[in-house]
Each structure stands twice: as C-alpha cells, then as structure tokens.
C-alpha cells in the first residue's frame, strides 16, 4: 500500500484552553493508520515544554516563527524548505493560525486540508466558538475542508455537528468541538491517504473501499 507522509501544522497546542492533551491524542491515534506516516509537526510558535516532550519521541518538531520574516512569501519559502526532506503528500492545518498564500498552496496543490471549529459557512475566521455563542446558535460543529485562497472557503470534506447547551461556556463548547475535531481529523487523513476523496468543483465525495 502507498504510504503518504503527512505534515501537521499547528499554532496553538491548545494549552491555553487546557485542551493541550487532545491534539497529541488525535495525532497519536492517526499514527495507527497504515496508509499514513507523520514525520513532522510544524509550528509558527515554539511549543510549551511538556507538549514538546509528548510529541518529540514520535515526530520531529519544526519551528518557523513568522515574526522573523518580513513577508508572507519569505515565511512560506522557509516552511517549504524545511519540509523538503520529508517528502510530504498531505498538509493538515490543525489550529494553524496563519493564512497561507497562493504561493504555498500551489506548491502543495490540492494537498492542504484545514480543520475549522465551526459549521462552515457559518462563523469563518478566528474565534469561531465565541462567534457561535454570541450569535446564539443551537447547533455548531466542525468542518474539514480543502484549503483554497479564501479564509475557510474551500470544498468541504467532512463535518460534524455539536449541540450548544444553554449553560455552555466557550471552554465547555470548545471541549465538545475538539473531541469531534479529533474524530474527523483522523477520518479525513485516512480517506485522503487511501485516495478515496474525489473533488468536483465545490463537492467532495467519498469513494467506497
């Protein structure tokens, strides 16, 4: 079976919301996949010590700090350079808070997937969970989509719904969304690496095994 090398991009390990354990759990779960390997995790912010300790035995951590670059292109050129040696076939943005330019997206054409903590097209951009609470929706969720040049606008691969309860805080809601995100990250990586995703215009369909 063909094995795809997957690079995980993150900005926020989740530690500021006490959810830091969930992301590595999701990655470790995905590492069981036969069709995927996870040689590298890339971040634009250095990881907290504990998080680094958890991840390091399993994959290399590459830190590319965007504040050290004058332009987006220079930042992205450095990311591309750092990834060269890993022969990456899929980039998964799991809480990566930098917008990627067409320059980067063309380099990994149709191979960049983002996980968004909202039920797109509702609540794109940052603070999706806060946006959902402020709007007063009763249902939110998360979305895995291919990345195009817009912000959270690309073709949708999978979604999951999460009910909003009257006593939910941002934290309790994020917790429920994170749990679903972990589940769909795993599923999407599996489907992509097994070559089962067909994109036609904005529609993504899943081929059966």
């Amino acid at each position: 079976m063909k094995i795809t090398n997957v690079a995980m991009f993150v900005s926020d390990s989740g530690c500021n919301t006490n959810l830091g354990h969930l992301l590595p759990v999701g990655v470790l779960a995905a590492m069981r996949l036969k069709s995927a390997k996870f040689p590298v995790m890339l971040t634009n912010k250095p990881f907290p010590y504990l998080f680094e300790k958890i991840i390091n035995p399993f994959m290399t951590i590459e830190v590319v700090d965007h504040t050290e670059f004058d332009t987006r292109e220079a930042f992205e050129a450095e990311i591309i350079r750092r990834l060269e040696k890993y022969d990456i076939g899929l980039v998964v943005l799991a809480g990566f808070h930098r917008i990627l330019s067409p320059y980067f997206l063309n380099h990994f054409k149709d191979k960049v997937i983002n996980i968004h903590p909202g039920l797109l097209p509702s609540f794109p951009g940052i603070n999706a969970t806060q946006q959902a609470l402020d709007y007063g929706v009763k249902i939110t969720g998360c979305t895995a989509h291919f990345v195009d040049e817009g912000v959270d606008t690309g073709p949708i691969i999978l979604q999951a719904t999460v009910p909003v309860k009257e006593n939910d805080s941002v934290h309790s809601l994020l917790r429920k969304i994170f749990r679903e995100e972990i589940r769909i990250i795993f599923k999407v990586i599996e489907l992509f690496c097994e070559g089962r995703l067909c994109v036609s215009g904005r529609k993504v369909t899943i081929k059966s095994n």
Partner: protein
Amino acid sequence: MSKKNVAVFVSGSGTNLQAIIDANIEAANLSVVLSNKPDAYALDRALKHEIPVEVVDHKEFNSREAFEAEILERLKKYNIELVVLAGFMRILTSFFVSHYKERIINLHPALLPSFPGVQSAKQALDYGVKFTGVTVHFVDDGVDTGPIILQSVVPIDDTDTEDTLLKKIHDEEHRIFPRVVKLFCEDRLTISGRIVSTK
C-alpha cells in the same frame, strides 16, 4: 391555562400550518390564517378546520407599508399574541415587526446563519456542506437574522438532489415548528439579547 391567540401567515400549500393544526397545542388558539395569495391551498386547510381566514393580496398595494397596515387592520379584531410565519413569502418591514416585537417567529430551511434568504436547500447543495437543517427564530428587521429559538440538523448525502433534500428538511420542519409554537404559548421562551433560552 389561558390560551394565546395565534395568527399563522401563509403563501402556499400550508404543510407547516397543517403540522401546527395536527399538533393540537393546548396553549394555542389558532385564531386566524392570513395569506397574501387568494389561491393558497393553506386557506382550504384552515377552512376545513374552521379557522377564520384573511386574504391580503400584496399586489393590490403600492407600498410595503400600505400592505402591512392593511394586515394590522385585519388582525385587530383577533387580539393576536403570536404571529407564525409558515411559508409566508413576503419580507416584513420594521413597521410591522415593531408592532409585534418578539412575537413573530419564522422558520428557515437551513442552519442559520448559513444560507439565509431564498433557495436555501439549493445554496447548501451548491456550497457542498455535509449538514444543513432547520432554524426557528424570532423575526427582527433583518432577513433571517433574529434570535434563534431552536435548530435541527439534516445530513446531506452524496446522492441527495434538491428534491430529496427538501423532503428531509420539510419533515424536520413539521417536527420542530409546532414544538416552538407550543413553547411560546406556554410562556417558556426568554430572550436576552440574541440568546433565547427555554424554561
């Protein structure tokens, strides 16, 4: 328990009106069904259940305000406490909405704020979402922007067409719309800013 007088506004076949009738909501008195179309089948359903009907044809009025003023005039005698928009295809202005502030509810065939306006099921299919649904909300001055009371999810399958999706959405509408009418008439909804909670 005192019953609340409810007006149901319709433009078409009135399947949601039928769902509300069939729910036999004890706290609701279905006082009148109002249509902007003289030939709406919903009127037949109302008459069959001996609910008074009013027809206010928007084409007979030069302005939205004149149309809405006539509706208000016709509703006067019913002492209406809740206006239910059940497939009513006219946008109501702030003139009308302010008369029934926080007493007008609308049903939208999508998970707002996604896909407001018309042809929501088609919008959802074209966008390629995997879930859509139904939203019941209080009406404010915007189009489908008011505080959300209840939402319900409808999954979209790869094989769904607009027709099959609409069927699923309508089934869900008929399930949740009467529930919201009931909650309102039992005084169990509270609005605080944009947040609607249920007692």
